[in-house]
């Protein structure tokens, strides 16, 4: 019994981890190109004359190129369903030399440029089709994701449901064990 419990406890995080990975596709390239053009036109202030965007599958590294040769770095990450309400499609994290105002400006530009969430799941288990798991519309609008929004994120659902079914299997195992043990007595 205890071995089974441990096995189920081990399976629990595996089930949570089974959630499909988010990734960016080539379809988001034009939007990042537009972001570069905006930076070249002075959207980040007169001291920034260019921008590099390095797409790393599940995140993006943004480098703001200063006229004097310096570089300010920010990271873009996908947001959770809860974060989407306040942060939009990207969580912007200022890194090397970047100021909070750079992050705010970047977030504003991203909201203007991206019409839909560029993060897609790699495989949703249905014929390998690509779908957008958390793809809400830009903040402030009322699209499908907000229209049907339940109070629970997908990750929380996976965790709670895994707990529920693991414990049900434990109850089943306890019943089988009690019935089998009595047979031998």
């Amino acid at each position, binding site marked *: 019994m205890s071995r089974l419990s441990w096995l189920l406890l081990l399976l629990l995080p595996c089930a949570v981890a089974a959630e499909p990975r988010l990734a960016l596709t080539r379809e988001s390239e034009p939007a990042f190109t537009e972001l570069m053009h905006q930076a070249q036109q002075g959207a980040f202030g007169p001291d920034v004359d260019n921008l590099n965007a390095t797409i790393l599958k599940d995140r993006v590294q943004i480098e703001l190129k200063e006229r004097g040769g310096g570089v300010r770095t920010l990271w873009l990450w996908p947001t959770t369903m809860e974060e989407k309400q306040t942060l939009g499609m990207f969580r912007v994290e200022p890194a090397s030399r970047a100021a909070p105002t750079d992050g705010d400006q970047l977030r504003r530009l991203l909201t203007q440029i991206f019409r839909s969430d560029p993060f897609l799941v790699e495989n949703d288990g249905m014929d390998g089709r690509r779908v957008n798991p958390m793809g809400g519309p830009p903040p402030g609008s009322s*699209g499908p994701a907000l229209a049907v929004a339940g109070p629970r994120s997908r990750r929380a659902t996976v965790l709670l449901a895994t707990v529920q079914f693991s414990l049900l299997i434990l109850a089943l195992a306890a019943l089988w064990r009690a019935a089998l043990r009595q047979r031998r007595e």
Partner: protein
Amino acid sequence: MEASDASEESPPIGWFVPVAVTLAAWAVFSYASPHTPVTTDATRDQLLVRDCLELGACHTAGAPTSVSGVRQGAGWIDLLALLRLVGLDVAGERRAVLLLNGLAVGTMFLLAGRLKRSLAWPAALLATWAIVTIGTARLLINTSLDVLPEIVGTGSLLLFAAERRRGLLLGAAFAIGTAVNFHVGASSLVPALLIVAAQASWTALLLSAVTLTGATLLTAWDAWEMNLDQLQQRHLLPVALGGLVLCIVAGRVLRRLPKFGVAHVVAIIAAPFLLGFLWLVAAEHHGVVASYFHPVLGPACLTLAFGLDSVLRRVPTIGERTPRVLTVTLAALIFVASGRSRAEIAMRPEWTYDDARVIARQLMDHGVTYSDATTRLQAPRCHDLIPAVGVYLDARKPFTPSPMSFSVPPGAPGALESRTSTLRFSPMVACRLPVGSGAPTCAPATPPNAGEQEPPGRFLFSTRGDLATHALSTPPPFIARYQLDVALTSDPVTLSVVDDSPPGCGWKITGLEGLHTNATFPTTRLSLAGPEGDSGHLYLERPFGTPGCGAPAVDSLFLPCLVEGD
């Protein structure tokens, strides 16, 4: 029926026998139900799952039940979502659910054998027969799986009566809570749990109540908030709470019984279920369907097996051969029932989810999106087919209006035919007009265009998963109305509404503006001809909640089947 002869007969049976029974039952269920037919309920559940996995909005309440205002828990939707996440499609979900049903049968075998060895096979075979016969294994809806937590719950209660192990009581509490989370009908098992727990001790009662509440609310707190609100509105909350207190008192009184055994627990499980069922039929005028007996399936099979065993043992010609005779007879019964189930499925002209997937693939090749499919796909029984196809289409893909419509020849899902369409579905307006007092509510039903931000109040077919969230939701009676644009092509065309509702209750074409026609409205068929490019508005209406239309129809917020032909 007491745990009496476990050790008096043959040597102990290992765990592999109930496992083999599980697999055998799985094989029977798979044979009896070779594929999953499309049903409104199953599609609704799949779309609720899609809301969670694709749109990122997971529900904390399941589908509406047939009792007005009462919602299922989210357990079933969560299970389907988990199965989807591990890579299973609809067919895979069905196989997994059938395996869990098989596990319920294996559990019945073990439980019955523990209580009375000779009942093991008859009880397991009766459970198999019941699951095949009442269609639980055939439909991919919440009752399909609920037998497993219910059998674990009731089985643990019965075994607790025989063994008095607290772990079994907690297992029963958790399994019953999970069963309630799947299907609200399992609430009828709660009184039995409270009586048995109170009969054991105050500590057992407290632990059971906490476990039960936790399992029930774990993923479905909104459903239970709504359901308690419904009880309050119907002035039944004090009655329900009083009933639960009465159960606890009854449990304490039963402590004084010199022998509290399995037969008592069976009676305690059956009585609240039967009372609840009678209330449903008498007060709510609810229909009686065999599958509604799923909460007591385990104890019922056990009691029936015990009764048959007792009766046959008294027949002189059978006597000691009773277990063998019962087993052979019930196995033959299952053989007949599963064959009949398979034949019925083959005879019914139902769409299956395999058909829907084949059609969806072809539509995707034509660039048809989810919103497009709601208006572009024409087929027999399309009110079932279109939402089912939607299960496989991308809900988030922007709408690109297509000039083509697609039709599926009967029985040939792989042979999609396309033609230039007369109907222009953009813009479209959806309205709900209350009968009597109240203002009509209308919303533009145009799906979102590529790159366009979606304004509030737009009617979206992609939100169909959760019908209750829609702004158009109107209490019955009301008239549902859609306004479509029609633009004539060079060929004359006949538009037909396909609806098998009783006369006066189904969808009708109720008007045409801007184009000439000789038709008298309302009608189900309309011929159109004229100069190419002429356009107008077409109106489609259907009453909901009208007396004399049979069972109350559910407004699925979907267009009727509209077929273009010559």
